[in-house]
């Protein structure tokens, strides 16, 4: 088991630039800037972005109060706030309605409130407002305060999408082509973004009220694609959506909401959904599809998570000891799942294999309790709960975003990077801490899905900057590879189409 104590001490003074020769180098060394890759690293400040100050339903308080008839008010209350609103309106205007109606509605209202508070005591997250819920279950650390709301790399090209505080989404490409800005009426409180695999254009956006699928033509030069390019997928009772996951084949999209006990499996093009309901847990907060497509993790707000098997869609329940599952990531072959729980400072590992029929218990692979490193300008404490986990596509580096203590001065959030080794036994080895510029804390991170020289970690910082930290290493899997199999394939084919594989060999 690896702990933070064996890590090399973080360099607080300067930004971490890249890893080379098993060493994380920072900007202290002059002349190393040339190594940075040519990916765009935009910066967004909070001042330039204006968020929605108030939700739409409360805008009526701006206007002068006007007494409508009881019918009008009841209809309006029914439209705005449903049954609750209607009952509330009737109870409040007791002098206009018959006495028995007012008393009855007051009783029903009390009963409903009692029932919902009972339900809420079972599942405390149900008492949150939808914005608070998104902030609670988002993978972005300190979601409500951040200028950046979400981030997603395209799985096949050098292209990423960033959701901002003002509910717009910007798409950056590696070359200096125009950056499209996506805005939609329904696009509120974006919690997650994901590009569709095996597709050049489709981007799924988890919003407060619905799911948006943008089709952004990569060849188009337009900077403001119209909202006609977006598909709106919604299902009653299925909002806010806090997590989405495309199947690796790109055919299905799964969405989850903390208030809905069923997760939706969407056939996006046909706009049809199959609800998969399991009572217990009170909702689904986080989804993660294994890279080989065979399993899907679904975390719930209570101390329980499920691992779905995606062939017949059955699930196994995994009750946790303490808190709910906060974040998780799969190894590239889909055989190993790393998890972090709320309230615990460890990383668990579950190893799946088809032979043994699944794991029996999770094992602790890393201890992330607070460790203090002495530094030139005071001590620095790192460690804490895990906010998010990310594993690079080669399975060699694991980045862990550790929550800091906002009260304490010298306890910031940091990203700890581990080296991972899967044979002979699964093991985490220390690599180092990724630090930002002075005063900036990491909020979110994601590995580039196909970086050629190793791994590339993209970090969103609290000062609204997005930076890329490359890890240069030569992967063990690259040298051996599957070349013998390909040679075999090229040898045994008939001569007419023999050229298919020969290019690689020659």
């Amino acid at each position: 088991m690896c702990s933070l104590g064996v890590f090399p001490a973080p360099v607080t003074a300067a930004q971490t630039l890249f890893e080379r020769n098993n060493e994380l180098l920072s900007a202290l060394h002059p002349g190393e800037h040339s190594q940075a890759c040519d990916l765009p690293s935009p910066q967004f400040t909070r001042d330039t972005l204006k968020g929605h100050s108030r939700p739409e339903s409360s805008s009526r308080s701006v206007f002068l109060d006007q007494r409508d008839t009881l019918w009008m008010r009841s209809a309006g209350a029914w439209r705005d706030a449903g049954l609750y609103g209607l009952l509330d309106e009737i109870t409040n205007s007791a002098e206009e309605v018959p006495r028995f109606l007012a008393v009855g509605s007051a009783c029903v209202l009390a009963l409903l409130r009692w029932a919902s508070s009972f339900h809420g005591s079972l599942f405390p997250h149900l008492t949150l407002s939808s914005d608070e819920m998104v902030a609670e279950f988002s993978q972005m650390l300190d979601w409500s305060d951040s200028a950046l709301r979400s981030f997603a790399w395209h799985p096949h090209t050098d292209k990423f999408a960033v959701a901002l505080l003002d509910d717009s989404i910007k798409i950056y490409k590696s070359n200096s082509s125009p950056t499209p800005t996506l805005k939609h009426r329904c696009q509120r409180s974006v919690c997650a973004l994901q590009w569709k695999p095996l597709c050049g254009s489709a981007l799924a956006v988890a919003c407060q009220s619905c799911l948006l699928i943008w089709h952004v033509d990569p060849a188009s030069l337009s900077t403001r694609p119209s909202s006609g390019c977006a598909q709106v997928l919604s299902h009653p009772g299925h909002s806010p959506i806090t997590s989405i996951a495309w199947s690796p084949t790109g055919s299905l999209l799964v969405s989850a909401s903390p208030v809905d006990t069923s997760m939706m499996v969407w056939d996006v093009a046909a706009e049809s959904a199959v609800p998969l309901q399991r009572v217990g847990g009170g909702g689904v907060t986080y989804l993660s599809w294994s890279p080989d497509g065979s399993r899907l993790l679904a975390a719930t707000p209570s101390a329980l998570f499920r691992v779905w098997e995606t062939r017949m869609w059955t699930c196994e329940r995994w009750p946790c000891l303490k808190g709910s599952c906060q974040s998780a990531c799969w190894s590239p072959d889909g055989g190993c799942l790393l998890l972090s729980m709320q309230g615990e400072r460890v990383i668990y590992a579950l190893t799946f294999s088809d032979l043994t029929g699944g794991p029996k218990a999770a094992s602790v692979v890393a201890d992330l309790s607070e460790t203090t490193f002495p530094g030139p300008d005071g001590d620095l404490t790192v460690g804490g709960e895990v906010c998010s986990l990310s594993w690079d596509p080669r399975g060699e580096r694991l980045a862990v975003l550790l929550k800091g203590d906002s009260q304490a001065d010298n306890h910031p959030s940091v990203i700890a990077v581990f080296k991972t080794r899967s044979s002979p036994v699964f093991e985490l080895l220390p690599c180092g801490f990724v630090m930002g510029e002075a005063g900036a804390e990491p909020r979110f991170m994601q590995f580039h899905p196909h970086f050629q020289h190793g791994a590339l970690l993209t970090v969103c910082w609290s000062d609204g900057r997005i930076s890329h930290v490359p890890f240069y290493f030569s992967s063990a899997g690259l040298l051996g590879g599957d070349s013998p199999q390909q040679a075999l394939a090229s040898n045994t084919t008939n001569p007419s189409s023999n050229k298919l594989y020969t290019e690689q060999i020659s």
Partner: protein
Amino acid sequence: MANTDFHLQFQDFEDGQGFTENNQDATTVSIDDPIKSRKQRKATGNAFEEEDSDDKTELLSGQKKSAPFWTFEYYQTLFDVDSHQVVIWRAVASIAWSVLLLPVTSAVFVLLSRFSLFHPIQWISECTSLLTASSTIFSLVVLCGVVLITGLFNLEFYTLVPSIPCSRMALLGTVLHPRQCVHSLVYCTMGMLVMWCASVTIGGRYSTLGIPCKQSESGEVVTCLNEYHLFLLLAGAFMGYSHSFLGVVKNMYYVSFQPIQQYKYPRFKGCLPMVVKCSVIQSLYSARNFAALYFFFGYVPKTWISSTLHLQIDSSLQPLDSLTGLLDFSLLYHLSISGTFLYFTWYLTVLLFRIYVTEAYSFPVQSTFTEDAEQCLPKVLAETNTLVMKFLALQDLALLSQHSLSRRLEVFSLSQPGGHPHNWNAISRECMSLLSELTQRLLAHQDAVASNGRVKSQSASIDTRSASSSSSGTEDVSETPRLSVPLRTPGSVFTSSVGGMHSALTAPFTPDVDSPFSSPAIRRLVGQQEPRSPWFGTVQSPHIMRRGPKLWSASTESQSNGSPPASPATVPSPPAANQKPSFLAQWLQNRREQLPEASSQALFADSQAHIWALQGLSHLVAASFSEDQFGVVQTTLPSILSCLVVLLEAVDRHFKLPHASSKPVRTVCSMGDSTYKTLRFALRAALKTAIYKITTTFGEHLNAVNISTEHRKRLQQFLEFKE
């Protein structure tokens, strides 16, 4: 029996001898005793077995043609018992489950119908005694019969390819089609039966049709008509009809496949709330409509029944076709509760059938025994008779290509002596022929649109009078086998000569050979006409008209039919100039306007098969990159790629047509399945994903594949993720 024994011994004796003697022996016996001879013929030798089997197939095919759909033989032949037992057993299991679930729903119905808020104990005890009463058991038996009959009767109507009427007239034609009329009639009867059972179960004032009452003037006791009972019975008939009507309008019998696989029980559990909700809503709508109908026309059946059955009408009671009579809370409650029960049993039958039939079935890829060869995936894929087997096979192909390594290896394997990749060749050939057939269909449709400007002018421009008096002879064009390749010349999209050969042979009531799961050819082919409707008879080609019996044909009709439909603008002009179109004609003209999107929907009505073919093909090709040891896929890779690219071009061009890319409104909560409306988008997405799957797997190696430069350019776009 002695004779048989003797022959068996005799055969043992003469083991070494040639066939001729055996044959002679057999023939002599067959003259004597035809029944025994068959047994012996089986015993005697191979030479006769072939003849025997020929006999059998003839017998079967004869049954197929002759058996009407209410006979049991029809259902035997429905699925071609030999090779498709799977589907039969699934259908039987679904019906059995819907019967088994009936006691539960009936118990719930009894509980709800006797519900009283203020006497809960009395309510429970009443219900338990009622549940064990003989009348309830009897009505349960009747209900079981109803469910059985509807389940079996529905088998005739389930379809994998929805019928999409492309204009309002076509829709009207579908509703008025004799087949549909029979359906409505059966459902009206079944609805009345269910309502009779319900009224007996509810008891009280509803239980019988006649009740004793005192006549006002004389004071003697006579039998009067119980209007409450009649009201419920009529409501049952009305609900039966509306079920049948909505069934055709909303394509309730369209069986669609889910995007994910689930076990039957979780899926049933997941769908149950939806079914309950749908049946409640539908029942409330029907109750409202029926109450309105009864208010206006209720006196007609009432007087009729009372006069035919010599039942008096009790004048002391409030008549039900009045406002005060209808505003009876308990009556409306019982009406909607029994309506919910009625719809629920029917919807449950449909739901269970859908769940059972669409369950994935795993076909063996190859078999070591030759007699099982018919059941293997490549053979079933090439199936044309029963569409459902083809669909199941395609679904299995898509699943195995994604999930099962061992079965993929079987697909890529070589035949043992000979070393030919028969499995892969058969599968890829079948998939590609499906895809190229879709390409042809799209191109034909585009050509038709291009030559006419708009598709709808074809059907809209035919003389209205001739259309309204259209002949009944051509309505059976639908009973034609599938067309493998549609004709491509612009005018000839409508003149399907293959359709003509088979038309007018089958009477309206004779079911087509592969009816439950097959589609009429022309509907899919052309897309803008609903061939089942008599209103479209005139759009057919002239030689069909000549064959069909011209019962109502006027002279103008033959004239307009004789002219080629490719030049529609000229045809209607002379009659239009001569006579002013009447109001009715204009109304008809308007009704015959194309429904938007309908032609697109109809073109892609069976695209689920194409989606699976695309998924299966692309995943197999991608898997072949590392798993195909003998390189069997490489030989077909160029043709697969060009097939996909050509299809992509056709689909792209189709989406540039008007209305093709507009999304339909999503309907909430109805048993009718509307997934067919978005199949074209699903197909486009599946096609792009399939190409991406291949290009990302092969990467730069694709440059070495031998395909034309235009296709290579298109593929380059995919390699750069610019699509």
